[in-house]
């Protein structure tokens, strides 16, 4: 996969890990595990309409999405962080979540390939 097609940009993360490849690898593994777990939790919360729970998870995922240089998710994340308070537009929330899930799943696949990580 070419760098141009990648959904992520690890420049910031490389800086923060001091270009330590072994440590970087371990952080990528953690990201994949953490994100997959969070997406699964979000799907469970959608079933029970736990909007504050979803907002909390999204808030926690925000910094890692930034750290991994995944672009284009900012507006969706901001919307979902605020969506727990007041009246919730369920249709819009779910659509935004599915968009985020799709991008992140694609991103995870690309990272697994790039870092040769087995599922």
């Amino acid at each position, binding site marked *: 996969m070419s760098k141009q097609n990648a959904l992520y940009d690890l420049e910031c993360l490389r*800086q*923060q890990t001091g270009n330590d490849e072994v440590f970087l690898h371990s*952080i990528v593994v953690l990201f994949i595990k953490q994100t997959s777990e969070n997406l699964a939790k979000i799907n469970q919360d959608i079933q029970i309409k736990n909007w504050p729970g979803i907002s909390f998870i999204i808030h926690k995922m*925000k910094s890692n999405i930034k750290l991994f240089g995944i672009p284009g998710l900012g507006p969706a994340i901001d919307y979902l962080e605020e969506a727990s308070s007041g009246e919730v537009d369920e249709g819009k929330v779910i659509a935004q979540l599915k968009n985020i899930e799709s991008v992140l799943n694609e991103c995870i696949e690309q990272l697994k390939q790039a870092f040769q990580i087995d599922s």
Partner: protein
Amino acid sequence: MNVCPFETKFVIYEVMKKIPIKIFVVEDDPIYRSLLVHFLSLNPDYQVKSYENAASFYKDLTEQPEIITLDYNLPDATGELVLDKILQVSPQSKVIFISVKEDIKTAINLFKKGVHDYIIKDEDVQQRLWVSIQNLKENILLKKEVASLKNEVEKKLNLQHTLIGQSEGLKKVLDLMQKAAQVNITTSITGETGTGKDLVAKSLHNLSAQKDHPFIAINVAAIPHDLLESELFGHEKGAFTGAASRRLGKMEEAQNGTLFLDEIGDMNLNMQAKLLRALQEKELTRVGGNEVIKINVRIIVATHRNLLMEVKKGKFREDLYYRLLGLNIYLPPLRERSSDIILLANFFIETFCKENGIHKKHLGVEAKKKLLKYHFPGNIRELKSIIELACVLTEKDEIEPAFIQLQEDAHSVYTGLGHYTLKEYNEKLVEHYLQVYDHDVMTVAHKLGIGKTTVYRIIQRKRKEILSK
């Protein structure tokens, strides 16, 4: 190796720098937690521990880490709740909040509670954290240094370290000090010059209920009479020429603490009346001011004069004498405490050698005899100077009598310096060294850092002088 006293502070600071700083990272996000721990652990000065929730962090909070980096949104507690717990259990810990959310209102509230920094999780998080911790590190090291120095000072002012000796005279002094410390009574310390009146005053303050408040000392004899009132009571702006701003007096500075008036016998009658009024009314007015300021100060006075005699001569007010006398502690002169001379001398040797980083020396039998025969007109202060000089002059471990330079010693080159010309002084110095080194010209020349011909020339000149007489 000699250690300059100015270097001592630096050495303490360097030692402090080697003590690791304990940092707790409280972060539920495993990625950020790993990144922060990895980054901070790169510095060997930091001892880093991490926690994924508030509950596990609370268990270790009693370890009182110097720095805590805290995620604002933990799964089991909000940042504010965790902060309250920190302030309660480990108030001296410095807290740095790390949050995803850029919320100024939250940040201001946290700063009001005493948080050191609020950092947003972005690409600069590590740099900002680094700067923040570096600033804190300096602050923590300085605090540790201050605590260490304070401890040293307290040790030095501890009775066992301050008043050395086993004589009956000293035991009586210690007994009176214990009694004076238990109550807020005016205390007068009398004794010859050099008996340690100022040290007794400081120790008394440290033993008393006022110990956590200031100890302010003022030497009445050292301040011109015209300035004493302003020094003691302070002055308002414009009170006199040169009074550019308001200045608090020593009495006000000593509020709730102790004011030590040394050489009170040298105070003039006019000032004595003003002091008496301030002590009776427990209030003062700054020079040039109208405001009456209430004072709560413990008074300790000292003098080498016989105040009762001064009262009889009309030089000291009788009413002030009785007000100040309070509990009198008389410090006996060293000649009346001969059993303490060697103990004190050994203490001064140990302290001087330690402070100056020189090999510890001891008094030889003859040197001890010489000290015990002396009458010490300058008391303990004189003994200290004699011992310190002996430590400097002696190169061997044992201090020989020749290096105990007493005032009555005819061969001393260190007394009466003002009476000699430089030429005479040089001659006396060479003569002294010739005596110490058994007239070995080469050694004397080497020790004094001069040529042997200079030594011979001085010997020749002295010979001619003796022959001509």
